[in-house]
């Protein structure tokens, strides 16, 4: 009996050897909350919950699998992975499908979203590229890194998918930041954006994007048109109060006032049903996840591991702040899901896979500095 328990324990320990348990705990908590809110938002039928649970299972499997790969091997493959992952981005422009553009490739079994892969491969590529030279990166390295970021970013913008493009680009920028990129670069970039913004407004942004920005500035100006989503979302959030209306009691989502309430706006459902306490709890969990990634990164012994783990962790932050800000009217509407809460997409899988890479870095830390 004791022996069996011991064998079982050993087996589990071996399986979980590469898994960071605090991180996994926080993720499981988030996933549990996500499924609970989804059950309510999805009309209290298990259909969406089962589909989302299946995605989580795939994601967790990917996380586990990737966590077993030594970072040295990851580093070795990084340029190849990056190069290969650009191909579907090109392909999706030709044969892709989607509501507002070409976002997915139909693989028969499921819809493949090429931009999800680049979310992992770009930080890998940059981490590899930056750590080859002494840090902080020198000028020509920064410029070359900019090209590495700009190529996938440009391809994603062509789909067009500004939200994902921004996520991808920001993960690259985070890698540069963590590599010690001079503050002057950020100052220059800020000035550049300010200069380009009017030009972009006139020639680059699509009408729906302009609408979103105008709506953000004054949602009440068009309460039945583009402002509707934000107004209804704010009503849902505000009506939640401190403790919320209770699970399954959110009238805004249950009566369909809240649009997209299983996907982009699911955090509003959580806000309505669980109140500010629920919001604070979830934000605290996200903060823990990000902090844990940064901790693992800081503990890593080589530059590649540090940059990759840090960039992936901070990418998580972009999801949360953009989605959480957008649905509450703090930021313009950008189609970015709430990680592990929003239904659908392959983002859950890619997020978990990314965290698998972080876990790999944590698990394969050499005992002694080299």
């Amino acid at each position, binding site marked *: 009996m004791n022996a069996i328990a011991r064998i079982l324990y050993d087996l589990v320990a071996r399986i979980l050897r590469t898994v960071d348990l605090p991180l996994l705990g926080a993720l499981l908590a988030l996933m549990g909350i996500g499924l609970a809110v989804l059950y309510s938002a999805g009309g209290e039928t298990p259909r969406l919950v089962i589909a989302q649970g299946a995605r989580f299972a795939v994601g967790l499997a990917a996380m586990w699998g990737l966590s077993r790969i030594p970072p040295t091997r990851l*580093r070795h493959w990084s340029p190849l992975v990056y190069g290969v992952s650009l191909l579907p981005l090109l392909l999706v422009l030709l044969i892709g499908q989607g509501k507002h553009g070409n976002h997915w490739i139909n693989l028969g079994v499921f819809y493949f979203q090429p931009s999800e892969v680049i979310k992992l491969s770009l930080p890998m590529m940059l981490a*590899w590229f930056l*750590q*080859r*030279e*002494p*840090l*902080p990166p020198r000028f020509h390295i920064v410029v070359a890194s900019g090209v590495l970021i700009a190529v996938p970013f440009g391809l994603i913008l062509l789909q067009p998918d500004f939200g994902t493009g921004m996520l991808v680009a920001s993960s690259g920028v*985070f890698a540069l*930041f*963590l*590599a*010690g990129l001079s503050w002057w670069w950020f100052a220059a970039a800020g000035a550049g954006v300010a200069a380009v913004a009017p030009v972009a407004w006139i020639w680059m942004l699509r009408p729906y994007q302009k609408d979103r920005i105008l709506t953000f500035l004054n949602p009440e100006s068009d309460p039945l048109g583009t402002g509707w989503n934000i107004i*209804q979302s*704010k*009503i*849902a*959030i*505000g*009506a*939640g*109060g*401190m403790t919320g209306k209770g699970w399954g009691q959110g*009238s*805004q989502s249950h*009566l*369909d*006032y809240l649009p997209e309430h299983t996907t982009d706006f699911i955090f509003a459902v959580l*806000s309505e049903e669980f*109140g*500010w306490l629920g*919001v*604070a709890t979830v*934000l605290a969990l*996200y*903060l823990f996840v*990000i*902090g844990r990634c*940064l901790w693992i*990164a*800081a503990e890593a*012994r080589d*530059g590649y591991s*540090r*940059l990759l783990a*840090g960039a992936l962790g*901070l990418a998580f*932050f972009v999801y*949360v*702040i953009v989605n*959480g*800000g957008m649905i*509450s009217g*703090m930021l313009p509407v950008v189609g970015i899901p709430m990680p592990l809460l929003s239904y659908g997409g392959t983002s859950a899988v890619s997020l978990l896979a990314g965290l698998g890479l972080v876990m790999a870095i944590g698990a394969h830390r050499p005992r002694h*500095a080299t």
Partner: protein
Amino acid sequence: MGPRRRQLKNAYAEAMQFRRRAVIAFLAVTLALAGLATWYFRLQVLQHAEYATRSDANRIKPRPVVPGRGLIFDRKGRVLADNVPAYRLDVVPDEAGDLKKLVADLSRVVALTPEDIERFDKDRRGRHGFRPITLKLRVGEEEAARFAVDRWRYPGVELVPYLNRRYPHGDVLAHIIGYVGRIDEADLAKMGEVDAALTHTGKTGLERYYEEALRGKVGYEKIETNVEGRALRRLGQVPAVPGADLRLSIDLDLQRAMVAAFEDHDGSAVAIDPRTGEILAMVSLPSYDPNLFVNGISHTDYKALMDNPSRPLFNRNVLGGGPPGSTVKPLIALAGLDSGLRRPEDAVFSTGEFHIPGQRRGYRDAHGGAGWTDLRKSIAASVNFYYYKLAYDMGIRRFDEYMRKYGFGAPTGIDLAGETSGVVPSPDYKAKRTRENWYPGETVIAGIGQGYWVATTLQLARGTAAIANGGRLVRPHLAASRRDGYDAPWTPLPQPEAPHITDNADHLRAVQEGMMGTMQPGGTGFSLVRGAPYLMAGKTGTAQKISRRGGASVDPHQLPFHLRHQALFVGYAPAENPTIAIAVAVEHGGFGASTAGPIARKVFDAWLLGTMPEPKPTNAVPVAAGTPPPAVAPAR
């Protein structure tokens, strides 16, 4: 191993550099998420009340609950007006899109008359586009089914159940009950927003007079709706108060008997219980089918009613009237007694032609000289001479005063809207109408109920009832009692104190005897009593509706048909203990005893003996041309 390094890396410095940056990043992330949490705190806690209100406003919509209109019963509890379930088509213009196309499409599924579309277009103007507007009432079962199959093709169109007013006895009671009609802009302005959920309102008759009571009170349900406005569940309600039911004093059988007694004649009649003022039967003929008006009458039907020279829509009892002729003599006789000018036994010698002293012109009796005539004989034999002289002796001022006391020249107060006052001849009235002086001769003819007189059948019936009941001028009324709710008790409607027309019972007795004399040998109505097992009292009359215009005499035969001579009869029975008083006016009916009297006799028989006259279908058929649609849409 990576490619060969071109420069030596400082591993420690890089690690420290990373840690610094990681700490900065973590602090920035913490700050940003704290900012987000603060932002949510502002929305969720500080502004919670505002958003909670808006959330409720989103989902909870008040929906009016239309009360059932009060039912109307006859004195024996038979239904005279009720409600039947029906369906109507409502359109919300904002949701319907192209209305012209919609109407065209819908007309392929349901029968839309030009009147429906005209009405719809009119209603649409000046109303909010999000409010449903009725396109068609009383949608048939087959039409409803056809619509239901194709309903997805008509956004913003809904089949709404409602209660449709029905008058099962149609034209028999049209002038009593009246009808409800579609609410128009003027009605809406009067009723206010609260009752905008109602579709119908009383337009004429009791339906109009008792509108407030019959209508009830619109209630509200708080309905939780989803974003498309579909009702999901009821959260609370202010219940609708159903309209009060009315119980009339009308006896349906007697009403039918009265209609039948008129046979083909036009005219009006009122039967009153003299003890209470309860109207037992009241007809104005020709009549019409009130059901035609409930859902909007068609142009052809309306034109037919309007073009009919006998004016079926005209309620002769309350709106009409004419000279009372000899039927007013009993009351003039009473005035003679009460004024002290005559005693019952005082007799005048009738020469058959009365002369105002010093004037050549003579005022004749139809039957020539009657010799010595006392009060009883003057009534029984209808001796004009007696009344020419009495009126002349009394003078028009006093005459006017007494006639007003008997209820002429003022509305009787019946529970119907728009009652006419009638006219009692007086210099004031003449001066107002013609700016001419009063001639003594006009006083003389006023004494036989001619000249400037206008009295309604209702006023005559009431005056007769006052003679019958011992002098009380009761208020004639149709609705006897009401109940507020199905299981509530019937409560009698309050009636005003009846003023007395005389203090002297002997005077009244003399007049009563005169009226009984009418029905005895030598009386003008003796032919009417054959075979009656009860005693009657009465007075016949014949009146020219217009005898003179200004000073000139008018040839009755050149008058429009409806203005020609009227045959009149007033009376009550049983004479010693009256339970019914009646006034009958038959248009162009010739002599009172020959047409109006027999009608009264048949009504008496029906009331006292229960013998119904042979029904003649001619009066029961609606006057309007065209076949009326079925009054009731099949329920469900």
